[in-house]
């Protein structure tokens, strides 16, 4: 009887200690989430981090949940804490609760970053986890979860043939967000007699109005706002480089990634600026990720507001090289891209070009229409 009472007291103590820990965890996590620019809040967050980790496995889920409204800066503080907590639990011989981790993973209200960590813990606990869970994650908000799901399904699909294979590849193509996987699936579908469009799948914009070249001797055009930057008037004529008269010209890229090669579309020019303009019709106000690549200096404007600039020339270009986040308004939206070319003489520095797409946070095309601007 005395043992029972003692046991109950201990249980009560532990449970109240646990509740106190959790309450404390909220304060500690708030300190961590408060970090901001140039190390502001680091001192408090560093102390909170250490105390949080000392609480061990009890605070794993509050810490995972804290990803939901964390900035990318704070999320990395949290990620390190979760690494440390996981190692601590493992060293103590305590298994992480698989059922709770799975429930967390399946709760899509949580941030993709936290859910991915939960998934990786589950894989560590049971190597068969991917077989069980990945089939349900083809449309996951986490890029990595979705990529793994597509990879696993692709492997299974290797055994399929004919109409079954085509049906499965089509299903996977609809879900895919990784460019390499999408390219591979597009090839498989082509071999199966289909005509998949990578362009529409990724929300790549292909229809533009172009104008240029404006002068950019010694790179001066990068910071000079020529008329199109102030107001786009597609009927306007401008004075360009060497006093040439410039007019907007329509251009449609036939490249699957929407590459606009300005050497071909305008002409090969050095020390120059060109503008590309298009209109996008959105059914409602919505968040947009503008993902693009450009081999030279570039600025991107949405509805007259500069969202991105990078003054880097000829250091490479790739799909989704840059990201600008903005908001599309319901109706027509003006998108302007400024591309600059410098005067490097190397053979590899002769192109000026860009490609651009509009997508959601997962990288999927938005329900918007690219509309050729009327002159």
């Amino acid at each position, binding site marked *: 009887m005395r043992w029972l009472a003692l046991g109950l007291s201990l249980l009560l103590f532990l449970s109240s200690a646990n509740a106190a820990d959790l309450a404390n965890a909220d304060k500690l996590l708030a300190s961590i989430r408060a*970090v901001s*620019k*140039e*190390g*502001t809040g*680091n*001192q408090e*967050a*560093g102390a909170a*981090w*250490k105390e949080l*980790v000392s609480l061990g496995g009890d605070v794993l889920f509050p810490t995972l949940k804290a990803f939901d409204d964390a900035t*990318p*800066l704070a*999320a*990395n*503080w949290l*990620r*390190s*804490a979760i*690494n*440390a907590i996981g*190692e601590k639990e493992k060293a103590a011989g305590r298994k992480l609760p698989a059922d709770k981790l799975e429930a967390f993973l399946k709760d899509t209200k949580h941030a993709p*970053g936290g859910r991915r960590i939960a998934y990786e813990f589950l894989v560590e606990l049971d190597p068969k986890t991917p077989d069980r869970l990945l089939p349900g994650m083809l449309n996951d908000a986490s*890029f*990595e979860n979705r*990529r793994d799901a597509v990879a696993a399904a692709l492997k299974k699909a290797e055994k399929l043939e004919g109409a079954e294979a085509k049906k499965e590849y089509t299903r996977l193509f609809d879900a895919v967000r*990784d460019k*390499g996987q999408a390219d591979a699936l597009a090839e498989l579908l082509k071999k199966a007699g289909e005509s998949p469009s990578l362009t529409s799948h990724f929300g790549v914009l292909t229809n533009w109005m172009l104008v240029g070249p404006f002068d950019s001797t010694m790179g001066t055009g990068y910071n000079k706002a020529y008329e199109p930057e102030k107001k786009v008037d597609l009927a306007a004529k401008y004075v360009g480089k060497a006093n040439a008269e410039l007019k907007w010209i329509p251009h449609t890229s036939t490249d699957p990634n929407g590459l606009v090669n300005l050497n071909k579309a305008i002409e090969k020019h050095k020390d120059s600026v060109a503008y590309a303009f298009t209109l996008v019709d959105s059914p409602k106000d919505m968040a947009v990720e503008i993902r693009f690549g450009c081999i030279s200096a570039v600025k991107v404007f949405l509805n007259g507001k500069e969202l991105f*600039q*990078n*003054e*880097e020339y000829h*250091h*490479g270009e*790739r799909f989704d*090289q*840059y990201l600008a986040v903005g908001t599309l308004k319901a109706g027509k939206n003006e998108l302007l891209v400024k591309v600059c070319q410098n005067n490097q003489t190397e053979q590899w520095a002769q192109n000026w070009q860009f490609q651009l797409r509009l997508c959601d946070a997962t990288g999927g095309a938005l329900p918007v229409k690219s509309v050729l601007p009327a002159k």
Partner: protein
Amino acid sequence: MKLLLSLSSLLVLGSFVTAGDWPQFRGPGASGIGEEKGLPKSWGATENVKWKTDLPGRSAASPVVFGKKVFVTSATGAKLDRLHVLCLDADTGKILWQRQLTATGNTGCHPKSSMAAPTPCVNADGVYCLFATADLVAYDLDGNLKWYRSLAGDYPAISNQVGMASSPILWKDSLIVPMDTIGDSFLAAIDTKYGQNIWKVDRPKSINWVTPTLRTTGDKAEVVFSSTKDALAYNALDGKKAWTMANMGSGTPTASVVGDQVILPFGGGVVCLKPEGNEMKEVWKAPKLASGYTSPVAYKDHVYGISRAGTVTCVNLKTGKEAWGEAARVGKGKGQFWASPIANDGFVYTFDDAGICTVIETGKPEGVIASVNDLKAEILGTPAIANGALYIQTATGIFCIAAKK
């Protein structure tokens, strides 16, 4: 006398770095010189391999060693955005702890490189890791987070689509962070305790891959840091410019300090500088001491440089005259040379990206190859020498090379 100088420099460099540690890019004071005895004369993918540990992903960084802990970085992910810091047991290669970050900066880079390209630095208070994404993190030696900064968040115009690789270094309680980029471009001293700026000075908007070097005089230190155009030095205490050597810049190699002299790579060669009043004067110039991507090593009475293709040149440290130059390409000439040469116990070690290490015996009138060792793995980072072993980080793993006892 040289040893005394070297030891006194070490005491000033890092708060608690001791002889035998390899605390930063190219080891103590960026010298590239180890103080170990009994390193194996030969090795291979299995021969004299004390341990080998796989890394989670690709790395072009170098390992650093503090006591019995080895620290390495690596990057994974389809978007190259998963950044890893690992602490390994120096004797067994066992992973003691591992932390991850998600990149907050751009992940563009040359295919040869990685987001784990800058080398960490370490002292008794912590290990400090900069990634090519401008993510900067400090852990204590047990893996507790001291602080983390997203420099790309703080300074959004940071950009280098070829991929950054310059490494931070430590001076007292300051972490000196090089960030020469095409956009936001700066050199900063960040306090090691809480990760806040002590000073930050603008730099030319141009990319480079140079790691700064400290030149210490008593309690003071200068940060020697080249741009592609000029070589400059800044007071480590406040970031004020100490001296400039116009048109003596370089894009990649790192300077060495011998006594009060600076062995400075520039253009296609090397210049030796010494202080005169508040200025630096040229002692000698060795235009043929080409270093390409690597940094020359000043060892005993000579300076050794290796070109991208593997030609080793050796000049006299006092005069800059070629001791033996235009030597035959070292090794089997399979790969290019990205890792800097290092020296220890009478030998200079060179590493190509095919995994071949050619060991050159020093103190001879000509370049004498002592051994050629093929690890059969891509080597990009400069190996570390500590604990009687060579720690060779390959693109995807790390080998501990030590003689069997």
